[in-house]
């Protein structure tokens, strides 16, 4: 199965080459790249990429299964939007305790070990670390909301 790195590498190669159209299918993964073409984003993956821009007028569509799909976002060469997802089921809290300041705000710079929120399960509060370096772009859930395993919580502009 293709990994994210594989896909990124493929996109880079196609982009840097003079190839105008490219398609690849492997298992459940299908990649189509068309340069200077209007490609309708038929996949949910592109819908979720808010404000994704490309320098060149190349668009990529990809059909990828499950978890891979959530992690694959295409944007600027310099930056990528990354989703921090829930590592467990639980109730999302933006602050360590009621009345305290939130762990992170939109625009805040974060590093690998920054605690971005807590998920409460069975009365225990579990710290969720960012695991990336970047900047918080959006907070996708509300304080007190119940979240599922894998549910996206934050959008991060990665450095």
């Amino acid at each position, binding site marked *: 199965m293709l990994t994210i790195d594989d896909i990124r590498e493929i996109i880079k190669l196609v982009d840097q080459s003079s190839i105008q159209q490219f398609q690849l299918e492997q298992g459940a993964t299908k990649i189509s790249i068309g340069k200077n073409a209007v490609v309708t984003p038929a996949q949910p993956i592109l819908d979720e990429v808010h404000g994704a821009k490309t320098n060149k007028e190349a668009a990529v569509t990809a059909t990828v299964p499950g978890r891979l799909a959530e992690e694959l976002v295409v944007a600027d060469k310099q930056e990528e939007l990354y989703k921090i997802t829930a590592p467990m089921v639980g109730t999302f809290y933006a602050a360590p*305790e009621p*009345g305290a300041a939130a762990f992170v705000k939109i625009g805040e710079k974060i590093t690998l070990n920054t605690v971005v929120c807590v998920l409460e*399960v*069975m*009365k*225990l509060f*579990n710290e969720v670390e960012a695991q990336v370096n970047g900047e918080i772009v959006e907070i996708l859930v509300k304080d007190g909301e119940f979240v599922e395993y894998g549910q996206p919580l934050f959008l991060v502009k990665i450095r």
Partner: protein
Amino acid sequence: MSIKVLRPGLLTSIQDLGRYGYQKHGVIVSGAMDSYSLRMANLLVGNKEDQAVLEITLVGPALLIEKDILLAITGGDLSPTVGGKPIPMYRPVFLKKGCILQFGARKSGCRSYLAIAGGYNISEVMRSASTYLRAGLGGFEGRALQVDDVLQLKDPQEKNASLLRQLASSSSASSYVSTKWFLGRSHIPQEGEPVKIRVMRGRQFEQFSGDSKDAFWNCPFQVSSQSDRMGYRLSGTALKLAEPLEMISEAVSLGTVQVPPDGNPIILLADRQTVGGYPKIAQVALVDVAVVAQLKPGSKICFQEISLREAERLYLIREQEIQTLQRAIRLKMQ
């Protein structure tokens, strides 16, 4: 294997959940003022809920830790630090032998609880390790800790030893290692607004004057400086009986709000005497006793009426929460 007291703090004593079964002999219950925090501290280090811990009041001690330990600190935030760096509360913390644990500024609440995996090696008196300070009984030599006291520790049991080893193996140069999970502390009163304390009407509530009854529900009271482990004396509107009452001494309970002749109510707490002869205007709901215990002199409170049914419901919910917590922590420790 032990802990040495370098500075004792304001009032640091060994307490467990209290001495039960001896009130009819005039022996008071004592025990932790905030029993909820005590239980959480014990659960965090894999101890039985009712193990003895150190109760720390306002100004905390400086303790030399003479062996690797797993500890937990709950209650109010009295700024615990090791090597100048804050250590987290409400989660298990591994400290290396040779550390000095200190406390600093009070940030919230009034009392902290320090539990150690395995517990302190304290002989029981009348089936409890709690310190009965006035009678010089129980705890560490029947008194609060003093400079140069040495507290012996028991060895941790297997289940909390494994968490200790886990954390120990991941520790490097840092003075402490902790977990990425913790417990909530929502019962610690926030600064600023008067704190709501839920109470049921007491036996002599109706015997108070109309004005006094109104004042009791509608006015804030302030915790006076004459507040201690026996009880919290409140100042505010002086409460008066509608007519003089001949009171016959009878037993009191944790959280009984009694009104002596001067009209200033007293909330009876851990070191209360077993019987009393003052009119009882109210009874603090058991779930809010821990909140009262975290108020400091100067704090303002407002009484809010609840029914016995509601108080019991809250109590049973709290007990269930503690069971859930215990299971959750056990799972984490595997």
